[in-house]
């Protein structure tokens, strides 16, 4: 396979940023090359260097990578998953009242770079793996939807499709959200949650509006975005995006999760809620979720090693293997969020994360 490693032409004068463009390197598993989806993705990456490999783990799981630095110049790895990528939500996961709650993980890692992201504790690499055999995920879901091995097959299923990534931010390259919507439209009883920090109205307009999808938009105060949600859109851009989504007819969930106990947090979050309630028709918000930052002990250990920063160095309290804010710090922040949201929407549409859950998109 290495015979295909022909030389890549020398690039022109080096531009100012020291880093090579994200996705300028694409590793492709030999088994993935024949998949139409691989070809589609490659055609969306006009200038890239392709390196064939036997197994994506040779690259993604290498020892002694620098995931923080890799985030500046992410490589894409196209692979074929050898197992189903649909997982049952853990009992501790917030299921928004759904009995049959699943998540799918067809993409590992994210284009954004949040300092608190648990993926940094989970993956040894900052590069992104995309499994191109989405059909196998759909086949697995088919059997789940048929109720095979399920005690309550008549109940609708709820699948988070943007779990270990931000799928909408990758849509111009992957087109996976469109594939999922297409699938959902043909499968009654299926609701998808698409969680995002993206604010690309263009990407949204390219999709057909579906009432089978809940667009879960994560909102944070600008000081938090600037300090620790690197490469993500500003609060006002996310609010414009949310307003447009509502106008287009999407069901919009607002996610205030994770809330971070920054200096002067009450003032910072109050200012954010002022901005949110002024910008959005709150009576048309599907629901909202609120949660404080929390992280498993193993992940935080890894994150502290790779990226000592304010959010990882915070003196959290440990219980049941999960680090959380001390109640004296966290409770007032949760209360503030619930109080502010209760002013503009019914309390039963506000969901609280107070478990040892993990995903904070």
């Amino acid at each position, binding site marked *: 396979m*290495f015979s295909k490693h*022909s030389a890549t*032409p020398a690039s022109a004068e080096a531009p100012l940023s020291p880093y090579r463009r994200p996705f300028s390197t694409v590793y492709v598993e030999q088994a993935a090359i024949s998949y139409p989806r691989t070809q589609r993705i490659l055609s969306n990456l006009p200038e890239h260097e392709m390196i064939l490999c036997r197994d994506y783990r040779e690259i993604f799981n290498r020892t002694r990578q620098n995931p923080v630095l890799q985030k500046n110049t992410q490589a894409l790895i196209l692979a074929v998953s050898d197992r189903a990528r649909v997982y049952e939500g853990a009992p501790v996961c917030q299921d928004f009242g759904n009995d049959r709650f699943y998540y799918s993980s067809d993409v590992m890692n994210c284009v954004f770079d949040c300092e608190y992201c648990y993926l940094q504790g989970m993956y040894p690499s900052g590069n992104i793996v995309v499994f191109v055999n989405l059909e196998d995920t759909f086949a697995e879901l088919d059997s789940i939807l048929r109720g095979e091995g399920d005690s309550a097959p008549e109940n609708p299923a709820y699948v988070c499709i943007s779990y270990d990534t931000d799928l909408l931010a990758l849509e111009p390259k992957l087109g996976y959200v469109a594939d999922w919507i297409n699938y959902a439209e043909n499968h009654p009883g299926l609701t998808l949650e698409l969680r995002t920090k993206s604010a690309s109205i263009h990407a949204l307009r390219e999709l057909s509006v579906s009432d089978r999808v809940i667009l879960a938009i994560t909102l944070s105060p600008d000081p938090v975005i600037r300090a620790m949600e690197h490469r993500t859109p500003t609060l006002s851009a996310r609010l414009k995006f949310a307003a447009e989504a509502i106008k287009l007819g999407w069901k919009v969930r607002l996610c205030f999760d994770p809330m971070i106990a920054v200096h002067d947090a009450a003032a910072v979050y109050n200012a954010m809620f002022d901005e949110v309630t002024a910008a959005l028709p709150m009576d048309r918000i599907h629901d909202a979720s609120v949660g404080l930052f929390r992280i498993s002990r193993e992940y935080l250990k890894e994150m502290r090693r790779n990226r000592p920063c304010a959010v990882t160095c915070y003196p959290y309290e440990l219980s049941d293997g999960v680090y959380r804010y001390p109640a004296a710090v966290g409770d007032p922040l949760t209360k503030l969020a619930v109080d502010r949201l209760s002013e503009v929407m019914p309390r039963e549409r506000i969901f609280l994360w107070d478990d040892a859950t993990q995903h904070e998109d």
Partner: protein
Amino acid sequence: MIYIACAMYMEAAPFIRRFACKRDDSFHREQVFVGEEATVIITGTSPVPAAVALSEALALLAPGDEDIFANVGLCGCSDVSVEPGTLYLVNSILEHATGRSFYPDLPYTHKHPHGGLTTFSAVVKDCFGGAFLVDTEGAALYQAAIGHFTTDRMYFFKIVSDHGFDANKISPTVVSELLDRAAPDVSDTLLRFASYVPKKSRYTEDEEAVIDYFCRSLHCSVTMEHELRRLIQYYELERGNAIAHLREFFPLHGLDYEGDVLLRSRKEGKDVLEAFRNSCLC
């Protein structure tokens, strides 16, 4: 520091000159030349001796987190249209004997073309087995260096010397010419890459002395010291000058930096650590 590994002295010579390196006689088995910006290690040819030499040298040299590694050497090329002297930066390495592959990251922009390298156990002259670039050390040196460098700080520069069938034309003069021609470019690129490596922020000696006093005064265990240093880092990042905060905190808890006053026991130290934790919280 840039650590440059070359199989032969002839390959290393232009770098020894460029970085004004001097032979370090404390190395008896390997030839190691040390300069201010670069250290050049002559590994010898073929995989096993090269890996052993590099491992031994790096174990003693103990590179740090801000140092980078480069292997620079000649290689064969299966594409006859590629001119001898063409310089490649390697983006994948296949170890022919085991079938294992290695991938340096190449995070920074540069002007060099990329190529895939296959490392054979011995010199191949007539059949490259479908490989593009071939050598006899690359994969072994990757495996010897990976214990000391992250994948973003390892670079493999290969200069095409032949296409197998014409390998007999490589004389010592040709080797020197090829290396002399490539060395300035390689050196400049390496200096640029080294300058991009993120630098760790460090406390000054005076600041470190204050932190050290705090640890001693509390009779910190290793775990306590880790927590204390993390709290100081947290305060610095979230609130501002942590050392100034410490200096204000000390007298409130019976501590005196100038007088080197220590607490009586670790138990008392734990209480003060708890108080310090609370003082850092938002």
